């Protein structure tokens, strides 16, 4: 299945990037995954593509919150101000769950909020949910 066009993985912890890549590889082998290490890189990556709305179609951002330089919340805030990016679904994946962080993230436009599990198998469930969210968010999601 190729439910989503692309995935932007924003994660500063190298070990977690390996884990997430491993998990994504099992759920969606054919989706291009772009990895960046902090909020600033994430913003640069999206800014470069903002001019071409087609290039950003059908993608999803998987965002860690505690990032160096520019935090996950700041990325959400920035995206909310950028008209071409407002519709891109963002899902937060964080090490320690906190209801207040979750509320804040949802208020800033996040579509999902998950805590990183210690059991690898749980990632597969989480990413299935993430793709479902991405499909629901895309304008032509209903036909897919």
């Amino acid at each position, binding site marked *: 299945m190729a439910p989503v066009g692309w995935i932007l993985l924003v994660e500063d*912890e190298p*070990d*977690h990037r390996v*884990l997430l890549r*491993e998990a994504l590889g099992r759920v969606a082998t054919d989706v291009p995954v772009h990895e960046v290490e902090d909020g600033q890189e994430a913003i640069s990556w999206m800014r470069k593509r903002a001019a071409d709305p087609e290039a950003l179609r059908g993608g999803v951002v998987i965002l860690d919150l*505690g990032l160096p330089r520019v935090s996950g919340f700041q990325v959400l805030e920035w995206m909310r101000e950028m008209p071409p990016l407002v519709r891109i679904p963002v899902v937060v994946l964080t*090490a*320690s*769950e*906190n*209801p*207040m962080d979750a509320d804040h993230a949802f208020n800033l436009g996040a579509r999902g909020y998950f805590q*990183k*599990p*210690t*059991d*690898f*198998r749980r*990632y597969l469930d989480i990413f299935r949910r993430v793709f479902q969210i991405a499909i629901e968010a895309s304008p032509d999601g209903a036909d897919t």
Partner: protein
Amino acid sequence: MRPERRNPFRASLVVEPMWRRLVLALLVVAVYVVGFVPLYREGDTAVLALSMFPVVILAWLFGAWGGLVAGVASVPLNALLLTMVGEQGWDLIVREGGAEGSALVIVVGCVVGLLRDLGLRLDRHLTDWRTAERALRETEDRYRVLFERSRDPMYVSTADGRVVEANDALVRLFGYSRAELLDLEVAQLYAEPGDRDLFRQRIDRDGWVEDFPVQVRARGGEVRDCLITATARRDAEGRIVQYQGSIRDVSQDWALHQLAERRTRELQAAAAELEAFTYSVSHDLRTHLVTLGGFASILGTDHREEMGEKAREFVDRILTASQRMDAFVQDILSYGRVSRAPVRLERVELADTVAVVRGSLADQIAERRGSVEVEGDLLPVEADRMLIERVVENLMANALKFVPDDKLPQVRIGSRRQESHVRFEIRDNGVGIASEDVPRAFRAFERLDPGRFPGTGVGLAIVQKAVERMGGEVGVHSERGGGSTFYVLLRGAPS
């Protein structure tokens, strides 16, 4: 105690007991009767003097009435005595100038008696007055010492603003000498002229003030916060003539208060810092646990077949440990959140909370084949939505967990009104808690049965913290082997 005999009048016979005076009176009369015959021959003057003698003595002993009675009685007695010596007694007294003499005796008796009575009365007044004066002086001395030795500054001032009396404490407070204090205008002592106007207004209206706050200025210009308690003294026409009162220097109290406040702020900041530290440490711990558990679970599933039996066992041990560690870190994080999150009390339907928790514990309920039964309608409470969910979730999870394996967990949930509060109860059929262990149950990291049931020992500490933050109360009724009933007492919301 007999009165002091400082007054010579009191030393005379008049204050002798009655019986002594009566004996004395008899003796005097006897002397008179015996002496009458020899003196009679000496002539009328001698008789008059002799008649006068007992009357005066009796008047002195018994007062005006005594003098009158003795004077009157002396007339027939003289007549009798004259008759006895062979005279025409009665005729002699009535006709031959004896009448004037008798009248004189009676009058002198009365006058002496009256003088004696007056003297006695005067003496009594004098004594009373002296006693009163001494008592007054003692009282005055007592209050003077109180005034002088008081550690609170005290003063008496005139209505036109002069200090007329000042104690040592007042002298110390202002730093002026006593002479200087008595010389200056009261207005100079106020740091804020407005204070004095308001003080005068209040005391002139009410006649007194209590703990009236003012700022005074000492000689060196130093300003101190004080409280004045004072009374106005009025003259007979009701005009205020003086003020008298005491001053409390609260600058020191204020400094202590400031110090206590600063220390409290520092402590609060330290506690907050410690909580923030715990929180960030727990967060970082979890970051590494995600890595550890993640890779171990890949090894344990995907690469299971490639490993030898021992390697498989070790990987499983790593996995179990990381899961246990994770539960622990999660609980510490949860405890931190419950301690730090702002509390917003609102009307919460316990029925909704129980439904939500039931959903999140569905797996555990199914796994243990447990039953959760709600008795009657649950009453609404004033609570924080997030906190009450944590409370119910932890209590319900415990109710399912602490049940022996051979028993199916039965959880009963109910509520009832208790005055303005609602008592929410969760009852289980588990192993129960021995009464001596109850206090330990709510302490963080305490586990009563570590070998038998898994857990971190933080659950009930979270419950207690959450309930405490909502202003409620939590407790348990339990018996070893007899199940437990946990209750939460929260302010009820109107139904």
